[in-house]
């Protein structure tokens, strides 16, 4: 599948992401999911293309943010569909990708 859209989190959302829920402060995972990730992901699924997500240039991604965004998306849409339509990139720290993929595959954290 072709990449037709992208999210550069540091530019499109924040380079300083927050916690899990909106009530916990600014730039939460929940806000990212609702305003950027979910709409773009749904368009990618409908359009049959891949959404490219750039994780670089940020301060890093707390587990609560990852859980509130990618984890929640996985619970709603299923890991296979997400992994089919989202491609993650991080040259700064490739382990960020591993952590997010682990969260997508196991959003409830039971495998840990």
């Amino acid at each position, binding site marked *: 599948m072709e990449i037709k859209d992208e999210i550069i989190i540091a530019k499109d959302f924040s380079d*300083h992401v*927050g*916690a*899990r*829920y909106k009530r*916990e*402060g*600014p730039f939460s995972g929940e806000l990212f999911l609702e305003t950027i990730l979910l709409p773009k992901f749904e368009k990618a699924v409908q359009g049959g293309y891949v959404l490219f997500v750039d994780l670089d240039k940020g*301060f*890093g991604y*707390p*587990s*609560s*943010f990852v*859980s509130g965004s990618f984890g929640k998306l996985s619970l709603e849409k299923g890991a296979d569909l997400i992994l089919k339509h989202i491609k993650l990139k991080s040259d700064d*720290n*490739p*382990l*960020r990708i*591993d*952590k997010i993929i*682990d969260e997508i595959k196991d959003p409830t*954290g039971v495998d*840990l």
Partner: protein
Amino acid sequence: MNLKRILIFSAPALFLGVVVGYLCALWPLEIDTEVNILDLLDLLFTIGIALMIPVFVNRLLENRKVIKTILVDELKALLSTYQKIKNILRDTQFKGEITKLDKDHIQICLEEADLQIIAFEEQLTIAFPAKVLEIVKDLKLKSKIYYKFVTGGDLMSEHFLSVDSHFNFQHNVEYTKIDISLKTLIQKLYNF
């Protein structure tokens, strides 16, 4: 090699040659012309190997020691990064408040830890490729559990304003787990 070194190494050899030549002139050696040239070459080859093996083995052992030291240093740096997080949490408990700056610092330390794990993995891949999968998989798992404990709960919430003794106690339990696993890994490395 400079001239001084050349002189230091070649002077004793020259002296030895002169002495051997003088002794041979005094007591001429009877050379057995019946000896097969292949036997002579075989003898020289065997002597050569006997001299080279200790040199090679020693160099190999020395190289392994240096590589292990580099790998152990990487793990010690990782331990020290996790120690920084422990210190931040301990200090904030005593201060009675945790600021946004403290939380950023914790996040930066976790990123630094990731980069140290990547560096360790890269060096281990070069030095001991057969061990990489088993060791790094376990290290990444332990590190992920710790990361999830530290940043997966309420800590990153803006309403989390102080670290209490309960949180610090729980943190110390998780910290100890990763601390022990890293120290055990250092022991394992020494036994490779």
